[in-house]
C-alpha cells in the first residue's frame, strides 16, 4: 500500500471572506468619526494617484532611488520651485533623473462601468440607519446619499533620465504593475482603478543641446466624486422611553395564566383622594377592578375608556384601600399565547340553589381568570377548584341565592 498523502491545512487566503470581507471594506470607508463616508473630491483622487506613483514606481538608479516630485505640478511657478528645490542644481534646474506627475486639467465624465448608468436628478438612496439617543428619546436617523459621480482623470507620469537602463527598469515596473490592465489605488478606503493608456517617448533629438530621455506614461484614473454636502440625514421613527414611578414598590405585579398568556394585575393603595389610577400602558381587555377584593361594576363604580390606561372611580376609594386592576394588554378578545395558539375569554354567572356545589361551564376551562361570590373575589384552591374540563366546584357552602361569577380562558 502506498503511503497515504497527508492532509495539509494550508490557508491559501488569509484575509476575511464573504460577509466579513464586505464589512471590512465598509469599515475602511467609514473609519472616520461618523457613519457616513468622507468626501472624495478631485484633490483626494489626485493624492491617491500621487501616492500610487510614489509607492509603486520606485526605481533605483546607480544605487539611489529616482526621486518623485512630491506634489502634482500646476501652473503656479513658485509651487513648482518649492517642490523641486531640494533636488535642483545650482542653476535651479531639477537634477536628472527624476519622475514627475502631471494631471491634465480637464476632468472628463467617468467611464467606470460600475457607475456609468446614471440615475437622474441626484436622487438620494438609503445608506444607513443610525440609532440616536438625546437623553430622553431613543430614535434613529436615516442617512441617504446620492449616486457617486463618475469621473475620468488623466495623469502623465514622466520619467527623465540619462541612462537607457533606467528607462528599462521603470518600464518593467510599470508593465508588471499593469499586467492585468489596471491597478488600484486607495482613496479614503475606496478602491479606485487606474488604467494604463499609453506609453510614448518624447526624447528630444537635438545634437546641439543637452541630451536626456523623456518618456510619458499616460494613465486614466476611473474615479468618482462623493460630496458630503449632498448627504441627507433625516430622523426616522422615534420611540419615547416612558418611566412610571409607583410609590409602593409592589404596586405592580404580573400574573401568568396557564403560564403562557400574560395577564397583568396592577395593585395600588388608595390615598383617599385620588380617583384616577393609571396602569402605564393601554388596557386591551379589562377583566376586573376590585377594591379590597370586591369586584366593582363598570360604568357604575368606575369608568374606563377602551384601550386607554386609566381607571376612574366615581368617588375616591377609602384611604389604604387595596385597588386591583386585572387586564390583558392585547387589542382583541382573542388571546395569543406564547405558542401562537388563540385563546378566548368568557364570563358566566350561576345562582346557587342549595342542591349542588358543582357548576358546568359552556366551554372547556383552560384557566380561571377571576371567580367571585356576590362580587367578592375568591382564591382558587381556597374557595373553589376546577374539578373537570368544564366543571367548577365550590369548596364551601354559600347562602342559597348567591350569585357566582366566573371569567375563564378556553
Amino acid at each position: 500500500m502506498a503511503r497515504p498523502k497527508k492532509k495539509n491545512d494550508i490557508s491559501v487566503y488569509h484575509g476575511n471572506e464573504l460577509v466579513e470581507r464586505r464589512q471590512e471594506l465598509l469599515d475602511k470607508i467609514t473609519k472616520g468619526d461618523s457613519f457616513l463616508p468622507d468626501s472624495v473630491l478631485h484633490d483626494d483622487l489626485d493624492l491617491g494617484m500621487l501616492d500610487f506613483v510614489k509607492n509603486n514606481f520606485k526605481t533605483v538608479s546607480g544605487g539611489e532611488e529616482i526621486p518623485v516630485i512630491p506634489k502634482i505640478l500646476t501652473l503656479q511657478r513658485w509651487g513648482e520651485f518649492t517642490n523641486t528645490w531640494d533636488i535642483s542644481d545650482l542653476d535651479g534646474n531639477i537634477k536628472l533623473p527624476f519622475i514627475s506627475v502631471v494631471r491634465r486639467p480637464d476632468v472628463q465624465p467617468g467611464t467606470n462601468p460600475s457607475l456609468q448608468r446614471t440615475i437622474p436628478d441626484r436622487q438620494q438612496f438609503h445608506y444607513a440607519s443610525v440609532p440616536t439617543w438625546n437623553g430622553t428619546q431613543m430614535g434613529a436617523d436615516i442617512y441617504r446619499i446620492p449616486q457617486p459621480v463618475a469621473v475620468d482623470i488623466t495623469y502623465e507620469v514622466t520619467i527623465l533620465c540619462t541612462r537607457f537602463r533606467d528607462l528599462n527598469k521603470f518600464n518593467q515596473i510599470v508593465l508588471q504593475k499593469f499586467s492585468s490592465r489596471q491597478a488600484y489605488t486607495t482613496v479614503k478606503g475606496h478602491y479606485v482603478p487606474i488604467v494604463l493608456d499609453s506609453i510614448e517617448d518624447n526624447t528630444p533629438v537635438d545634437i546641439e543641446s543637452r541630451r536626456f530621455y523623456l518618456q510619458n506614461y499616460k494613465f486614466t484614473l476611473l474615479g468618482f466624486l462623493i460630496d458630503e454636502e449632498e448627504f441627507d440625514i433625516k430622523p426616522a421613527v422615534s420611540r419615547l422611553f416612558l418611566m412610571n414611578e409607583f410609590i409602593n414598590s409592589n404596586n405592580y405585579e404580573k400574573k401568568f395564566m396557564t403560564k403562557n398568556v400574560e395577564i397583568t394585575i396592577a395593585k395600588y393603595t388608595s390615598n383617599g383622594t385620588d380617583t384616577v389610577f393609571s396602569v402605564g400602558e393601554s388596557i386591551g381587555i379589562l377583566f376586573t377592578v376590585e377594591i379590597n377584593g370586591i369586584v366593582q361594576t363598570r360604568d357604575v363604580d368606575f369608568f374606563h375608556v377602551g384601550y386607554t390606561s386609566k381607571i376612574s372611580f366615581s368617588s375616591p376609594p377609602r384611604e389604604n384601600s387595596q385597588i386591583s386592576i386585572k387586564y390583558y394588554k392585547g387589542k382583541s378578545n382573542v388571546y395569543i399565547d406564547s405558542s401562537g395558539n388563540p385563546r378566548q375569554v368568557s364570563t358566566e354567572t350561576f345562582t346557587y340553589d342549595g342542591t349542588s356545589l358543582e357548576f358546568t361551564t359552556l366551554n372547556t376551562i383552560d384557566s380561571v381568570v377571576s371567580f367571585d361570590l356576590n362580587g367578592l373575589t375568591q382564591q382558587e384552591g381556597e374557595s373553589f377548584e376546577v374539578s373537570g374540563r368544564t366543571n367548577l366546584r365550590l369548596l364551601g357552602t354559600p347562602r342559597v341565592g348567591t350569585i357566582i361569577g366566573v371569567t375563564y380562558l378556553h
Partner: protein
Amino acid sequence: MNKKVPITRLSKFFSNEDFDLNVQIGEEYLHGDLNMKLILYRVDSDSTDTDAVYAEVGKDQIKFYPPVEFNALVRVESPKNNNYKNGMVRYNEPGNLILSVYLKQLKDLGIDLKYGDFIGYPETEEKVRYYTVSNDGKVTSDNKHNMFGFKPYYRTITCVPAQEVEFRGV
C-alpha cells in the same frame, strides 16, 4: 600621412612664414592678452568600463586622462528658458559654449578635443561650469577656418552643458 605636400598656393602674396606670423600674433593676443583658460577632461575610453549592451556608464564611473589647461576664444550663448512637458517642469538651460582654438596650440600640447570629452570653464572663483563636446570641429575645410584660403589654423568647438549625473569635475 608621413608624406607631406608643400602648400604653394598664394605664394606670390602669402607664405608659411606669413601664416606662422599671423598665428603667432593671434596667440599672443589670445593667450597673452585675453588669457581665457579652460580645462580639458579627456575621456579614457580604454580604462572606462561600459555597459555590455548599451555602452553606458553610471554616475562618476568615467575614467579620465589627467586634465589639461588650454586657451581658447570663448563665447557662451544665452541661456534658454525651457520646459520638459507642456509648460510644466521648467528648466533654465545654460547656453552652449563655443570655443575657437588654434590648431598649433593643440599640437604643441599634444592633445585633441574629441566628441564627448568634458571641458571646465571657471565662470567665477567658486563656480566652474562643465560642458561636454557636442561638435569637436575637426572638419576645418571651410573658408572660415582657413587663413586667406592658405591653410586651416583654428577649430571651432561646440560644447553643451553637462548634467551633474554625467560629469561634475574630477
